[in-house]
């Protein structure tokens, strides 16, 4: 450790301390503590990158500059980790839990394996992301902005499970009339990308950070062709192009260009509802439900300080894409968006899961 790091950290913490709002309790001090940020996925996916990006920044802003360690607890598409977190009680404020859309979905679909209740947890930070679907080079050549030429190709896709975040791409591809066979049981999107690179899978999607880190080189090498993003929400709640990938059409555009794909009606509404729950508010950081208010405020202030860093926009766009980060009340509102889906959309998706994959959730 060099002197300059010490100095810089001291300066940063002084600035942070001076800039913090009044409610921050001076009593909460994490000096010498280790904060465990548990991620219910493997080390290879987007959630890992997300937490690894925020962890050191958070460490600098929390009082006492505790070590923030990201721990991985993968299994059963993240319900394993979430069920574990449900059992955790507030101890000394050193446990943070990160969820992703793959944790939200089983909850929304009343999956019997879900033993957790989002409403009992306290969100302290939420951030959105986007997703990019891409094709192998051979089939990518047939892609012309619509899926019209892709309808008689058999695609293979490495999937974490139809009831997970993968629901959004799988449903989108089906709406486009494409024939995509999922291979279930992979542990993270990184493994899915590797399967794509080996040629075993022929279609893949990554969340924005995973796409930027691992898939862009494939596109540059001509081994992959970007197909579409899921898009982003504008202020009116309509789907527009993803600002991180302005050159890639959104699913909505591709759907409009493809015969037989409708951007209205039950099917579209259901897709959009799950897209909103899974992407614009994809990742949330939680404290256990019984955490005292002063600890919650400390975390809120720390995350606030992180996103107010002058270089935050720059460093975050490189690692996690240009998406909003919500803190405090914003994260509470974000949680509402992510965990409420109209009943009609839910019923449609439940019926589709049963018809397409024989999955009955009850």
């Amino acid at each position, binding site marked *: *450790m*060099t002197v300059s*790091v010490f100095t*810089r950290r001291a300066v940063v913490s002084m600035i942070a301390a001076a800039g913090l709002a009044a409610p921050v309790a001076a009593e909460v001090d994490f000096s010498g*503590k*280790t904060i465990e940020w548990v991620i219910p996925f493997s*080390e*290879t996916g987007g959630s*890992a*990158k997300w937490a*690894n*990006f925020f*962890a*050191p920044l958070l*460490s*600098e802003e929390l009082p006492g*500059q505790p*070590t*923030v*360690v*990201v721990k*991985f607890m993968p*299994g*059963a*598409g993240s*319900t*394993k980790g979430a*069920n*574990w977190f449900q*059992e955790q009680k507030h101890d000394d404020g050193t446990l943070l839990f990160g969820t992703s859309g793959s944790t939200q979905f089983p909850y929304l679909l009343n999956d019997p*394996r879900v*033993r957790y209740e989002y409403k009992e947890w306290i969100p302290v930070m939420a951030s959105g992301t986007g997703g990019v679907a891409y094709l192998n080079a051979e089939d990518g050549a047939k892609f012309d902005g619509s899926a019209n030429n892709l309808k008689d190709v*058999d695609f*293979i896709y*490495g999937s974490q*499970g139809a009831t997970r975040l993968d629901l959004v791409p799988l449903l989108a591809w089906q709406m486009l009339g494409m024939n995509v*066979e999922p*291979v*279930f*049981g*992979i*542990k993270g999107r*990184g*493994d899915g990308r*590797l*399967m794509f*690179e*080996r*040629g*075993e899978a022929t279609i893949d999607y990554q969340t924005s950070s995973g796409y930027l*880190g*691992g898939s862009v*080189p*494939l596109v540059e090498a001509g081994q992959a062709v970007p197909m579409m993003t899921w898009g982003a929400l504008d202020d009116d709640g309509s789907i527009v192009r993803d600002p991180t990938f302005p050159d890639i059409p959104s699913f909505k555009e591709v759907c409009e260009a493809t015969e037989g794909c409708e951007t209205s009606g039950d099917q579209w509404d259901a897709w959009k509802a799950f897209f909103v729950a899974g992407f614009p508010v994809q990742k949330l950081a939680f404290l256990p439900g019984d955490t005292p208010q002063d600890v919650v405020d400390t975390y809120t202030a720390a995350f606030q300080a992180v996103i107010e860093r002058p270089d935050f926009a720059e*460093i975050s766009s*490189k*690692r996690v894409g240009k998406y909003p980060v919500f803190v405090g009340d914003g994260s509470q509102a974000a949680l509402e968006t992510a965990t409420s889906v109209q009943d009609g959309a839910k019923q449609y998706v439940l019926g589709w899961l049963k018809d397409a994959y*024989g*999955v*009955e959730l009850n």
Partner: protein
Amino acid sequence: MEILATALPELGHAWALILQPVVLGYLVLGVVMGLCVGVFPGLGGIAGLSLLLPFMFGMEPVYGLALMIGMVAVVPTSDTFASVLMGIPGSSASQATVLDGFPMAKNGQAARALSAAFASSLFGGLVGATFLTVFILVARPIVLAFGLPEMLMITILGLSMVAVLAGRIALKGMAAAGLGLMIGTIGEADAGGSLRMATYDIPYLTDGLKLVIVGLGIFAVPEIVSLLRQDRSIAKGASLGAGWFDGIRDWFANIWLSVRCSVIGVAVGVIPGLGGSVVDWIAYGHSVQTTKDKSNFGKGEVRGIIGPESSNNAKEGGGLVPTLLFGIPGSGSMAIFIGAVALLGSGDIEVGPGMLKDNLDITYSIVWLLALANVVGTILCIAASGGIAKLTTIRFTYLAPFLFMLISFAAFQSGQNFEDLLALFSIGLIGIFLRRFDWSRPAFLIGFVLSNPVEKFTNQAFQIASFRFRKSFEEGMDYIFSPIVIVLIIITVVSVVLGIRQAKTIMAEGDVQSGSKRAPLVFLLVIMAYLITALVNANMIPDYNMTDKVIPLVIGGFSLACCAILLVQMMRRPEGDVIFADKEVAGEDADAPYGLWSTLAWFAGLIAATWIVGFILALIGFLITFFRVRAGADWRMTLILTAAGIAFMCLMAGALNRDFPPGLLQSAVDLPWPLK
């Protein structure tokens, strides 16, 4: 050629980066920290790296890399101490080393075993780095050639080592491996999340059992209990025979074995998703197969150490390929490493496909820092081995309580639950009986370790193959029977045929006498009862989650069939037949002055007391009572040893930010660390 032309200047640049005094200083610092962490079984690189993580933000990249790599590189070297001296497999990298390393220590050849192991480690690390320097340039397409069928075949090759290690009765070995596989399926399935032999009411079981706990339970607990019963030193007669120089000579005499196993290590390490779990078993199997006189394996054959130790450090180098080129970590510590690299400097180094193009010099620095760290770490370890080997001459009764302390703490680190201790005790019981009745413990462990890969690769390869077959028959056959798969099948078949022929001469448990029918028969029936329960349980999973039930059903059915044949054989054969092997009939265990249950009760007592008053308080009571009552030490000695043990525990845990298992007392009263 063109590749080489760009690579050579980058290699030169990398050396210029590494050979700065400051960088070397950081490397040595990392190595020393790694050694301190690594001798602790069950902690390893993850704990150490987590400790370094906060210092990485904005650090000069090559300094940070030197520090982290120094730490990661020596863990597979330093955990050799525990596996050779105490029979404790510290990590998956040292499982196979226990098989011959610990018997050598018992023969008074601890220093020789250690230095042979370290020399092999060093050499393996260097071979690995040399190989990687060239290989990393062309690695991508080769790594990508290993699809799911290929990975499945490598896993099966690893499993086929059961044939070599099955012991005198092949059926027993297969049933032991099957039991290991079945124990490995406990918990939530990866594919569909169904529960197997678990319930949400016992959340601990849904996570499945951790390798550290199973390794400690199967190898360490039975050995500690057995030695404690005999009340002697680890080295028979408390004398040290051969010195550290002999070990280095042994290694040099077997240098070609070391070369081959290093290459095996790099080659398997390169494949993402397999990691270290199979490497040392394949290397051990190879060592056995290429040795003319196999009679010493399992009893202290130095080639049984040189093989696995050459491969496991080379594997660390190989593991860099998926980590650096694909951004896919081969192990938990590599995952933290990836996270840490992103924090270095201005954050420009992004581990992944761009690494070769944009940061070839950094890539080479990492490869050679790893090799250099191996050199530094090995020299330190060899220098220490002569002294540390003297531990084996101490009366074991004075060591055992500290070992119980260490393995309990190590087990607790894996899941931070009190149940970790219960699991350790239960698996320890299984281990004790496997050992007593001469069921191959290595076979059990191989089964357990490979349970998850076997299931995952089988399911996924099957799905993709069935899609391909639907397209056309040829495409399906091309996918399943790729040239690599065919080569692997041939290797597997040859190694199984050779293995079965050789298995009879390799007695991992020594020459076990046979006795009456009753005890071995009861043990067999207990295993059958478990298998039947597991089968019924797996069968209850609904059919739409077929991926979650098919492997437990097939493996469970197979193991049950093995057991059923054994049962018939047991009923037919006369008493005293080799099938009724029982260590309590004759030999060291039978002649031991202390009984099994009274000895085990000490360990049970420690766990029970932990449940009530928490680990540290329980440990104080345990150490004092043990030294006074069992060891018969005077009060002065007792207090000094107890204080030393507690101080050591607190020092290590404090430095690493670790907690101790809490008890009922802790949930009622708020106590300060380390009592909390």
